[in-house]
């Protein structure tokens, strides 16, 4: 199966085979890359630091990421690997990043999803939850300032919305009518903390109207629903009407991090959400609509596995940074 052509955001994605196949490719690649990291490389001791993955949440970064234009700014959360893939970051670089090698986006200075690439308009998170929210407002301010039609997308979890930075960032963007699309992955847990201990309102989106920001709730495990919502949100933001919030209901199908067995999650929730797996659902739809045959999907997965094998091999050959690099990059080289 050849790679589907890049789709334009205004295409009617609802019945589009192209979107489905492209989304499947990115979602399956994200799953494969993260499965290897969390369940193989981490356990083999090849990743020495923290590992946070987005298993079960792939439809969110893919659905939104595929609706963004290349000059839009992305502020990913720590569970949005696919945004990097969509912007052309190679899985090799991602494995090298996790392994602390020079081939990673931070050349070993940082690990896991703590990475960015300003040339691709991806702003790196810092670890503190919600710190990107005011930064996204500033990026959007610059896009508006320069008179572009571009917008900033800011991704975060449900727990992040408890931080003051989140509230200050939203309010600032709303007051200034800045073109920001907020994408919440509400996966119902923040580390071990369930939603009920995080907020007294039922939905993250309930918080938005207080800032004068329109919001909607979408099925975060349906890539088409996410994509359509992202288009509506982007249309709103691009029109100059100010920010927009999408709350994607989903579930974190793993521990908070690779060392967390998540025993605090009741079995019934795992069972319930396994049924709603976004990749399985998308494949089912593709088969029902006859957009591709079962063998073609199998071949796609096989191709991804091969690419990932090669990427890991490459990353393992990428050297560790030399200790002499320690002092580099604190300031601009003069």
């Amino acid at each position, binding site marked *: 199966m050849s790679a589907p052509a890049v789709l334009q955001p205004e295409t009617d994605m609802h019945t589009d085979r192209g979107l489905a196949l492209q989304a499947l490719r990115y979602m399956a690649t994200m799953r494969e890359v993260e499965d290897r990291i969390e369940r193989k490389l981490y356990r083999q001791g090849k990743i*020495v630091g*923290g590992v946070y993955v987005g298993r079960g949440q792939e439809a969110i970064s893919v659905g939104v990421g595929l609706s963004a234009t290349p000059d839009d700014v992305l502020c990913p959360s720590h569970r949005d690997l696919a945004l990097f893939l969509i912007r052309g970051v190679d899985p090799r670089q991602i494995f090298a990043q996790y392994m*602390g090698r020079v081939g990673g986006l931070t050349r*070993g200075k*940082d690990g896991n999803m703590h990475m960015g690439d300003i040339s691709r308009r991806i702003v790196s998170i*810092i670890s503190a939850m919600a710190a990107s929210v005011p930064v996204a407002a500033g990026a959007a301010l610059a896009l508006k300032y320069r008179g572009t039609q571009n917008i900033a997308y800011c991704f975060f979890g449900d727990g992040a919305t408890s931080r003051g930075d989140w509230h200050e960032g939203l309010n600032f963007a709303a007051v200034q009518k800045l073109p920001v699309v907020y994408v919440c992955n509400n996966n119902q847990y923040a580390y071990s903390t369930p939603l009920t201990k995080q907020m007294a309102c039922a939905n993250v989106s309930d918080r938005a109207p207080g800032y004068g920001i329109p919001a909607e709730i979408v099925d975060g495990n349906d890539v088409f629903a996410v994509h359509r919502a992202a288009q509506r949100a982007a249309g709103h933001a691009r029109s100059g009407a100010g920010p927009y919030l999408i709350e994607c209901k989903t579930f974190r199908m793993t521990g908070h991090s690779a060392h967390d067995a998540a025993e605090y999650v009741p079995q019934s929730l795992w069972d319930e959400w396994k049924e709603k797996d976004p990749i399985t659902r998308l494949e089912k739809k593709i088969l029902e609509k006859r957009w591709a045959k079962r063998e073609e999907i199998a071949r796609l997965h096989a191709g991804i596995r091969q690419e990932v094998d090669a990427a890991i091999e490459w990353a393992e050959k990428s050297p*560790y940074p030399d200790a002499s690099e320690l002092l580099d990059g*604190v300031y601009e080289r003069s």
Partner: protein
Amino acid sequence: MEMTYLEAIRQGIREEMTRDSGVFLLGEDIGVYGGAFKITSGLLQEFGEKRVIDTPISESAIVGAAIGASLMGLRPVAEMQFADFITCGYDQIVNFAAKCRYRWGAAVPMVIRAPSGGGIHGGPFHSQNPEAWFVHTPGLKVVAPATAPDAKGLIKSAIRDNDPVLFFEHKALYRRIKEDVPDGDFTVPIGKAAVVRQGRDLSIITYGAMVHVARESAETLEKEGISVEIVDLRTLAPLDEDTVLASVRKTSKVLLLHEDVLTGGIGGELAGRIAEKAFHDLDAPIVRVAAPDTPVPYSPPLEEAFLPNAAKVTERARWLARY
């Protein structure tokens, strides 16, 4: 009883909660989960939800609420999941908590526990040593134990103290050291350093995980005929100047060691005080060994180059001894 540094902190907290019904805990994932490092494991079951509060991800609210409760006479012990996130509650700490007593005579008897330090491949946001930011703020007490007995004795003193205390726990020590810890009501006074090794030729002044690095280095130097004295500061604010100066006067050579970065670290303050008050007792320049002025890098070779270790200390100590 033999226990780890981590267990010693837990035991100290449990004893204080048993002794004083006004002591309660708040922080992220500390109850049901027992905390990211499991320090508070079992305490929810023992003391109930009223006294072990799982909070939203809201460091500013955690600190602010601790201040409010302490103004009303309770004794909150707040946990930062990692010391790095203490920045999210910074204003509440340095402007609210620190200045209540001075401005309007109100006591803020609260403790903020903060797992700090590197050596666990945590990268720039899970490895920092932010103690100097708070040492620089009058009104705060800052404690950083290096041993299991001190961890227990100091957490108990911190909880009983009537001023806000920042309690920096070194993550790399949690499970690494196992020591005999006195049972029962044992406290270690805040503001008192300890001479943890007697020596003649030079003094290493340090704290936290670096105490163990200093000990390792001292063993090596001993074989070379260099006798090292080690002062474990234990409390960084207020500084136990007397113990430091006494050691400097005894050995006449001093090496200041910390894991925090060099610029603006405690070493600079110590150097200033030693130069002011014991200049004529010195036989050599003051030497500082600290991390370089960079963020804490993630990749193992970079982190190794970043962190002070026994080899780096030994090399500088040899130079100092020969001077």
